[in-house]
Structures are given as structure tokens and as C-alpha cells.
């Protein structure tokens, strides 16, 4: 379950403390002046252990960080439930937690993440307002679920309760996020798809699928039910037991009527269902859509009028960090938000939270295609150099503002989580 990628062998923490103490003395004696941080890190390699849910645990980022800052990043990827557990139960096993916001909501009250002083974050001002106020544009509607800004701030360095609005203390620096919707086979659906309700169309009986991960599947189901006009949720991201019952009963009925072909659990299952034509409309993740398309099969990440189900992650500092390691962690985060990583993530079809800096690391054509929703002038290349989209292609759903401006709900954790999982298992067994 746990994949570990170790980017070059770093030094142990104890070794680091010894050498850095010696180096500090040496540097003090030698020059009498402490120069810029990057130089110091290069001379005294420091290791930061980062763990998280995989999407942004990319080796390319660790390698580039080593090159630019001399800081070794040791990355460990787990699934989200294991990440939540590890964050709470082994707080000394990591320095930086790279987790989704709904996980943060679960783990922050345990006191394992220390709030960040925004005055030390160089690029704080450029973070998109979605993560500060919940509104991408001044007239956006705040989405349901665990919206990042609701768990983004605390009142002080020792506070464990989330603040109502923007403060000086930031819980996590947002790094990566995206808007999820339904994937379709445009060649096989035979009509225009414009609503989440379309997945329940009798025409697609036995040709639709949804994700079998309870916390995400229930949200997709909620989007579908609300789109069909069967129910209006108080908050899709935090359903009451009655709402959970209604949603699961609805799913069970649809299943018994034979509406679904399958329920997928892993990325490649969803790709195979779609590319083999077993399924023509289903919940999907954006890289899976790209994977189907790379096999030469038409697949669209269809924007829907009810909006997107969105997810977002960020980096939090472990509570135990202090001194030189804390400085290095801030240094790393400032580097992370300074543009290179942002450009890298944007080019993968995700979004960076620091768009202004990311723009400087993308070509105008890439920026136009990925962020502004314009037709590609030339071929759009993947990070490994293969052609991802041909010239003239337009991104599904259009520009960043069109997509992230239409978020209906965020991935979330419900108060009735345990009950929901039990009922979801009934749906799968039914």
C-alpha cells in the first residue's frame, strides 16, 4: 500500500544536527557572516520527509528541489485513509504533510500540524482567493463540503480551532487542486450530455459506472440526485443520516434496475471500462480521461451545468519542526510556490494555487491551453515529451475560471462518516 521513493540518500536527523552545528560554528568563524540560506543548505544537506496522497508526490519535484535548494525531499505516497491515520498516529515520522483539505479537517484538531506564519510565506499574497475567501471571483458562490478556506486559518500559533476568516496563521499552503466531473465517450453516448442526471438516463442502462470509494462516490451520487430534482441537500458534504439513507436507497434501486455496468475502485479499472466501451458515461478523474485519449479513443471530461465536484490539497508543517529544519521547510514551501512546480502541475492538468508565478514557467501557448481555455497553437506536450493534445485542441470545460468558478462541492468528511460507509457497503452488497 505504501510506495516509498527515496531521492538520494540524505543524512539522518542526528547527523544533520551535528554537522549543521559544526558548520554554523565554522561559518561563523570563517566568514563572520551568514550568507543566504540556499548556500547553507547546499553545504549541509538537509532532509525533509514529506508524505501524502500521491498526486503531488512527484519525483520530478524532489529532484528539482535538490538541484535548486540542496534540500533532499524524501517522499512517501499512501492512500488517503492511510494518510489521515499516519498524520495523527505517527506525527514524528514526517516533516511535511501533503494532504487533502478534508484530511486536514480530521487531523488538525489533534495538534500534529503547526500553523504557518504568513509573514514568512513569500508568495502568500499571490495565492488564489479561492483558498482565502472560498470565492475564485468576487461574485462566485461558496461551494458545499469541506471548502479549503473553512479549514485554512486559525487564530494563533497554538490554536486548534479553525478561524472564521483570513488571519495571520495559515494551516496549509494550497498546492494542487482540480475540478472533477463525468467522463463520457462522445462517439457512443449519441446525444448531448449536460447534466449529472444524464448518467441515470434509461438509454445508458447497463452502460454507466460510478466510483466505489465511499467518500467520493456518495458525493457523485448526491450531485446526480440533486440534478434529477429528487432531493435538495442542506450540505452535500455533510449529510444527515436521513439524507444518507435517501441517497443510498436511490443508488440501490438504480443498481437493482441494472443501470450500472460496474463500480470501479482504481484508476486503471476506470480507464479499461471506458476504453473497452463497456461503459459510456461514468465518474472519472482527469488523468484517467487523458489515459483513455492517449489510447486513441475519444473521451471527454464533460462539463455539466450543475458544476464540478472539486478536491484540493496542500502542505502543512509537522508540529515537531523547529530551528533550522523549520527554516528549511519554509524555504521549501517558498520555492514550491515560486513557479516551477506550479508550471509543472498546470501542465499535468491540475491547478497550481500560485497562478502568477506558475505563468512565468509556462510558454504562452501552454498557458493559453491549460489555463485560459484557448485552442492550442502547437502540439501540447506532456512532461515526458510525448504529444498530449494536438494543435487546435481546446481543454474540456474551458478556462481555469470557468472550471474552478463552477465548483458545486468539495471532497469532504462527514460527521456521519461511519454510518455512511456502512450504508455504502449495503449498496455494494445489494
Amino acid at each position, binding site marked *: 500500500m505504501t510506495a516509498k521513493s527515496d531521492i538520494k540518500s540524505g543524512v539522518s536527523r542526528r547527523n544533520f544536527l551535528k554537522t549543521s552545528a559544526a558548520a554554523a560554528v565554522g561559518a561563523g568563524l570563517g566568514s563572520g557572516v551568514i550568507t543566504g540560506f540556499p548556500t547553507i543548505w547546499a553545504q549541509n544537506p538537509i532532509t525533509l520527509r514529506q508524505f501524502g496522497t500521491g498526486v503531488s508526490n512527484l519525483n520530478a519535484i524532489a529532484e528539482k528541489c535538490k538541484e535548486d535548494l540542496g534540500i533532499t525531499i524524501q517522499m512517501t505516497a499512501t492512500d488517503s485513509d492511510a494518510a*489521515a491515520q499516519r498524520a495523527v498516529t505517527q506525527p514524528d515520522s514526517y516533516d511535511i504533510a501533503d494532504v487533502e483539505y478534508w484530511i486536514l479537517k480530521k*487531523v488538525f484538531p489533534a495538534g500534529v500540524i503547526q500553523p504557518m506564519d504568513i509573514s514568512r510565506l513569500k508568495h502568500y499574497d499571490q495565492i488564489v482567493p479561492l483558498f482565502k475567501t472560498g470565492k475564485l471571483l468576487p461574485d462566485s458562490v461558496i461551494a458545499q463540503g469541506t471548502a479549503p478556506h473553512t479549514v485554512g486559518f486559525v487564530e494563533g500559533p497554538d490554536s486548534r480551532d479553525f478561524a472564521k476568516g483570513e488571519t495571520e496563521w495559515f494551516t496549509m499552503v494550497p498546492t494542487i487542486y482540480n475540478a472533477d466531473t463525468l467522463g463520457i465517450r462522445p462517439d457512443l453516448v449519441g446525444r448531448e450530455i449536460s447534466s449529472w442526471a444524464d448518467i441515470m438516463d434509461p438509454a445508458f442502462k*447497463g452502460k454507466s459506472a460510478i466510483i466505489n470509494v465511499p467518500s467520493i462516490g456518495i458525493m457523485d451520487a448526491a450531485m446526480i440526485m440533486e440534478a434529477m430534482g429528487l432531493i435538495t441537500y442542506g450540505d452535500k458534504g455533510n449529510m444527515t443520516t436521513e439524507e444518507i439513507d435517501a441517497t443510498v436507497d436511490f443508488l440501490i434501486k438504480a443498481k437493482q434496475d441494472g443501470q450500472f455496468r460496474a463500480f470501479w*475502485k482504481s484508476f486503471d479499472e476506470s480507464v479499461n471500462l471506458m476504453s473497452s466501451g463497456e461503459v459510456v458515461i461514468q465518474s472519472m478523474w482527469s488523468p484517467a480521461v487523458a489515459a483513455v485519449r492517449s489510447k486513441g479513443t475519444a473521451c471527454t471530461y464533460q462539463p455539466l451545468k450543475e458544476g464540478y465536484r472539486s478536491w484540493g490539497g496542500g502542505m502543512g508543517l509537522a508540529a515537531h519542526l523547529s530551528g533550522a529544519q523549520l527554516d528549511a521547510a519554509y524555504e521549501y514551501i517558498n520555492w514550491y510556490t515560486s513557479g516551477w512546480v506550479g508550471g509543472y502541475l498546470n501542465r499535468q492538468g491540475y491547478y497550481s494555487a500560485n497562478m502568477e508565478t506558475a505563468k512565468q514557467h509556462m510558454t504562452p501557448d501552454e498557458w493559453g491551453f491549460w489555463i485560459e481555455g484557448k485552442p492550442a497553437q502547437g502540439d501540447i506536450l506532456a512532461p515526458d515529451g510525448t504529444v498530449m493534445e494536438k494543435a487546435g485542441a481546446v481543454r474540456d470545460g474551458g478556462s481555469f475560471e470557468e472550471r474552478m468558478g463552477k465548483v458545486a462541492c468539495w471532497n469532504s468528511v462527514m460527521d456521519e462518516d461511519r454510518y455512511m460507509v*456502512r450504508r455504502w457497503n449495503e449498496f455494494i*452488497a445489494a
Partner: protein
Amino acid sequence: MNALLARATPYLQATPLLLILGFFLAVPILLLLVVSFWDYDFAGIYPDFLTLNYAEALGSWVTWRIYANTLKYAVIVWAITALVGFWVAYFLAFHVRTATMQMVLFLICTVPFLTSNIIRMISWIPVLGRNGLINSGLTGAGIIEQPIEWLLYSDFAVVLAMVHLYTLFMVTPIFNAMMRIDKSLVEAARDAGAKDWQVIWNVVLPLAKPGIAIGTIFVVTLVMADFSTVQVMSGGQSASVALMMRNQMSLLQYPAAAANAIVLLVLVLLMVAGMLRIVDIRKEL
């Protein structure tokens, strides 16, 4: 002193096995039992003595339904593999004349097992799918208008894959049992005027019973513990006991999964005990 050593020798000889079984069998099962009474939340598991995990598992209709579903697979797969296994073994043991040919044919039976379980299972998907070999063949030949939907992601697909995966576990012990049947018994039966089916029914079948029993134990325990075949071949539409445990483990609900594991263990042990009462397999060993 010597007498003491003589008495201790058998125990000393049994010690390595005892240690191995103790470490790798008894201790894990004991831990499973202990953890099944613990409390848990999303962040961890806590030592306690709660019967809640059992109450939740046994008190829910979902559990019963999943057990019924798993038993259904076990019974169907057992019946088919026993039938197929018996006749394959019978052919090998009584119709193939030379021992060399018997071994060659038997090895051919094992060829599919040179590839991984998962691959053998997944390779059914392009065959059975909506646009798979069978459906495109039948529609192409004009035999059917619409692709047959129930070939894949159905109970049929699950049973088919399981039969494919587990038949050899039935063939081997039955073949082994049949090879021990004294051929003169068959001759005597013929001399006494028995027809072919009477020989099979009155001589071969009773003597092959221990082999069938061992094969049954293999197949039933494998099917009861299966989760990947059910997940992949039913497309997540069906559940099995092990799949339910896997779901719980992926949500870090270890105590709940442990409680289910204990229930399953007890059930399977009861089934095996039942089989052993009917057939004395020690004759075979």
C-alpha cells in the same frame, strides 16, 4: 539421564515445526482474535474489550447476505470443479495406458498455472466483454442482434473464472486417489458382470472419495477467501466476505475486519470438520 533424553527426543524433533507453526499460525490468529475485540476510529485502534465489532458484523443483514452470496459461489464452483475434476482424473487414471503419457497429460493440465492468477482471470475480460471475442463473433456471424450482457460483470463471469482457476486443485487429489486403486478390483467387478457405470459408481467413486474430500477442502477454502476474482469479474457488483474485509481494512477499520475474519475462520473450520466426518482422509495420507 539417557532415559530422559530418549523421552525428550521426540519433543525436540517436533520443536522446529512447533516454533514455525506457533510463530506463523498460532500467534497471528491469536492476535486477530485479540484485535477483534478492540475499539477503533479513523486514527487508530485502541485496546479494549468490546463485542460491538461482532454485534455490528452479525447484526447486519448485509453480512448475512454477503455470507450467503459467498456460500452460493462456493457451492456452485465446488459442484462444477468436482464434476470436471472427477472426469478428467478418471480419464487420466483409467483410459491413458502408459504412465509416461499420464504424466505428460497431467503436466499439460498444470500449464495454465505457470502464469499468475490475476492474469488468467483478467484475460477473460477481452473474451467476455460487450465488444469481446464471443460477442463480436456471435454478432458478426449474425446469430445474435445485441451483445450478450451477462457474459461479463455477472455471477456467471465470477463462477467461470473461479472454475478456471480452481479446477486443478480438484483434479490433482482425485487423480492421486485413483492411481492408488488396485486395477484388479476393477477387473473383478467386470468379471462379476458389472457394467461401466456400475464400476464407476460402486468401485471407483467410493475409493476416490478421500481425493474428492481433499479437493473439496482446497476449493471451498479458496472460494470462501477470494476477493480479487469477485471484485474484477463482477465489476464491483457483487460482494464476498473477503472483499468486505478488504473494504474495512482500506478504511483502517482493522478490528471490524478482524471480527469478520474470526467469523469466517470459524465457519470454514466447521465446514472442513463436517467434510472430515463424512470422509476419512487420513486413509489417503
